[in-house]
């Protein structure tokens, strides 16, 4: 049964997820999204551009955070999601996406959720906030 607004407490943590950012999966994403820049799916080309390797597209990171919300609350409706791409997530790395409920609005039955993606070194590479409506 899907989570409801009344089930959620202020400060609740969403179960973290370890997103698949392997080269094969990022290529699936870039194909579906039409993002043809080689720096997203070719390590060698990314290094030629001065990057340490291929990088995960920012909008894929944002999609990972949306998926984090839906895995926690499949019936959630995302009313707004704002993400800041502080630093790249590397393809073939092992990031972790997390979220925590920072506010509840009883009138609109919406939650504010702070979102992050960290790399293996626990560096926060992507931050965001989402406004989410629950039944």
């Amino acid at each position, binding site marked *: 049964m899907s989570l409801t607004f009344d089930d959620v407490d202020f400060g609740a943590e969403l179960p973290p997820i370890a997103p698949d950012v392997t080269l094969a999966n990022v290529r699936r*994403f870039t194909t579906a999204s039409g993002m043809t820049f080689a720096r997203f799916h070719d390590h060698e080309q990314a290094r030629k551009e001065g990057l340490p390797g291929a990088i995960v597209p920012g909008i894929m990171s*944002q*999609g990972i955070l949306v*998926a984090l919300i839906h895995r926690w609350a499949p019936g959630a409706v995302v009313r707004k*999601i704002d993400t800041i791409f502080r630093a790249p997530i590397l393809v073939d790395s092992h990031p972790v996406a997390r979220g925590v409920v920072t506010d509840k609005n009883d009138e609109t039955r919406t939650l504010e959720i702070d979102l992050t993606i960290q790399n293996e070194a626990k560096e926060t590479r992507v931050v965001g906030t989402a406004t989410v409506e629950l039944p």
Partner: protein
Amino acid sequence: MEIDVEALKRDWTGFTFDTAEFEALTADLVGFATACGETAKRYTDPSDPDFQAVPNYPSRYVGRRVLPDNFPRLGGGYGFDAGKCVTPIAPIRAGDKITARSQIHDVYTKTGRSGTMLFIVHRMEFSNQRGEPVSVVDWRMVQQDRGAQ
């Protein structure tokens, strides 16, 4: 280089400088969602009666022009992508014909250790084939004044 933010706002915000059209294809909707790890069936299964694009799907769309012609370039180039804010309004369904209208929504500066950075908020407003608004995406681009370092 001195940045006159008020002049930039006055001269460049509030008008549509680009319009582009896209079609929401089933395979792309599924591929985008599943690659991100989405598991809710309304985003991953075309046979679901409520099948639709994930909320941030329109952030994949880029118009024909990133900035209006002759928009000043600080430090050269378009800068880098600092973030995106998506406000879904209505579902995007498979087969929808999406029209995107671009405008410069805001311009502001921040100054840090690496110098002054110019933030340009490129807003894309999306509507479907019935003219119904479906989403707004604010794309924050940053240009850095390398001469100030």
